[in-house]
C-alpha cells in the first residue's frame, strides 16, 4: 500500500514537471483514472506547486507582433462564417423581395400614369376639337356679320311651300355692293345624304344658282354665307329647291321656300 503511494507520488511529481518518459506518463494517466480523492487532491496540489515555480522565470518581453497576430486571430474567430453567410443570404433575399415589390409598384404606378396621360390626351383632343369648332363658328359668324354691317342691303323674306314645308322660313340679306348675301333658313326638312338644297335667284323668269347647302337640324335657324351673288336687278325672287348632291344647272326638284324682292 505504501509502495503504491510512493509510486503514485513519484510519478505524479515527475508528471507535473513533464519529466517522465512516455511509458511512465501513460502509466500515471492510467493510475489517475482510478485514483482516490486523496490522490487527486495530491495531484492538484502538485500542479499548483509546479506552476508556482514559474514565477521565478526571467521576465522577457516578446515582440509586439505576437499580440497583434493573436488579436487578429481572435478577431477573425469572432466572425462566424455560417452566420455571416446566413446574414448575406437573408439580406439578398430581403433585397430581392424589396426589389420585386418596388418593380411591381413601379409597374402599376407607370400603368396608372399612362392611363392618366391617355385620358388627359383624349380630353385635350376633345377640347381642341371644340376650340377649332368654336373658332370656325366665330369666323363664320364674323363673316356673316360683315354682310349685316353693310349699309345698303336688300332684305328678302321666303315662305314655306304649302305642300313641302308649310312652316318653312327663309331670309336673304343681300349686299349688292359687296356681291355677297346672308341666307337664313328654318323649319325645312333635313336633306338626305345624296341631296342638297340649292338657292336660286330668279330674275326675268330665269333661275340663277346662288349656291348649295345642307340642313341637318331643321328646328334651329341655319345661316349660310353666299359668295358671288352679283346682280343689278331691282326685281326678282329667291327660291330653294332640293337637288341632287352638288346642285344642278337648272332647278329639277321640289321647291321648299320662295320669296320676292
Amino acid at each position: 500500500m505504501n509502495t503504491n503511494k510512493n509510486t503514485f507520488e513519484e510519478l505524479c511529481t515527475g508528471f507535473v514537471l513533464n519529466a517522465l518518459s512516455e511509458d511512465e506518463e501513460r502509466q500515471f494517466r492510467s493510475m489517475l483514472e482510478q485514483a482516490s480523492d486523496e490522490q487527486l487532491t495530491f495531484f492538484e496540489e502538485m500542479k499548483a506547486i509546479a506552476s508556482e515555480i514559474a514565477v521565478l522565470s526571467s521576465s522577457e518581453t516578446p515582440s509586439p507582433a505576437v499580440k497583434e497576430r493573436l488579436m487578429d486571430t481572435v478577431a477573425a474567430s469572432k466572425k462566424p462564417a455560417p452566420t455571416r453567410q446566413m446574414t448575406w443570404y437573408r439580406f439578398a433575399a430581403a433585397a430581392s423581395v424589396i426589389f420585386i415589390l418596388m418593380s411591381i409598384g413601379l409597374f402599376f404606378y407607370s400603368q396608372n400614369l399612362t392611363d392618366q396621360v391617355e385620358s388627359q390626351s383624349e380630353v385635350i383632343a376633345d377640347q381642341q376639337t371644340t376650340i377649332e369648332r368654336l373658332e370656325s363658328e366665330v369666323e363664320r359668324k364674323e363673316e356673316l356679320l360683315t354682310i349685316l354691317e353693310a349699309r345698303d342691303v336688300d332684305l328678302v323674306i321666303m315662305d314655306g311651300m304649302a305642300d313641302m314645308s308649310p312652316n318653312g322660313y327663309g331670309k336673304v340679306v343681300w349686299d349688292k355692293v359687296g356681291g355677297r348675301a346672308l341666307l337664313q333658313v328654318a323649319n325645312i326638312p333635313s336633306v338626305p345624304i345624296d341631296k342638297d338644297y340649292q338657292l336660286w335667284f330668279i330674275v326675268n323668269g330665269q333661275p340663277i344658282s346662288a349656291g348649295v347647302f345642307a340642313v341637318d337640324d331643321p328646328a334651329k335657324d341655319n345661316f349660310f354665307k353666299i359668295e358671288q351673288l352679283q346682280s343689278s336687278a331691282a326685281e326678282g325672287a329667291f327660291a330653294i329647291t332640293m337637288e341632287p348632291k352638288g346642285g344642278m344647272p337648272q332647278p329639277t326638284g321640289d321647291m321648299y321656300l320662295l320669296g320676292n324682292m
Partner: protein
Amino acid sequence: MARIKSRDASALSELYDHYNRLLFGLILSILKKRVEAEDILQEVFTNIWEKAEQFDLERGTVYTWIVSLTRNKSIDRLRSKVYKEQKKQSTSLNDDDVFMPLYSEDSDPLENTILKDRAKRVHQALANISESQRMVLQVAYFNGMTQSEISEEFDIPLGTVKTRMRDGMMKLREILSKDLEL
C-alpha cells in the same frame, strides 16, 4: 476568465498584458530561441481563447491552468523531432541565435508586484530544500529535461533523481501550502 468564455477579446488582451512577460520568460528558458518562444506564446493564448470553456475553477486556478498549458506546449515543442533537428542545425550554424537563460536568481525579476512577492516566497522555499533536490527541480522545470536525461547528464541514478524530485516537491508543498491555501 468568465469574460473570455463570453468571447470578450478585451479580456484576453488584459490577460496577455498581465502574463506575457512571465510566460515568455518561461518558454524561453525551455526552448532557448525567441522565434520559437514567440510562436508558442501566441499558440498558448490562442488555446486559452479557443479552450476557455474547458477551464474548471474547481480543479485549479487560472494561473495554474495557464502555466501548465504553457509548459506542456513548450515541452512538446522541445521534444518534437523537427525542433530537435532545427536546434541542432541552428546551434551549429549560428550560436548567436541561441538563447540560454536559466531561471532568474535576481530578487527583483518581475515588474508585477504580486508576482514579485510570490517569486520571493518561492525563492525562500527553494532555499529551504536541499541543494540536490533544488538542482533536479530546476533543470527539469526550466530546461525541460526528463528524469532520464537528468540521470544521464548529471550521472545520478534514475531512482535517486525520482526520489529527489518527489521529496523536493513535497517539501515545497509543505512550505508553500499556507501561502497557496492548499
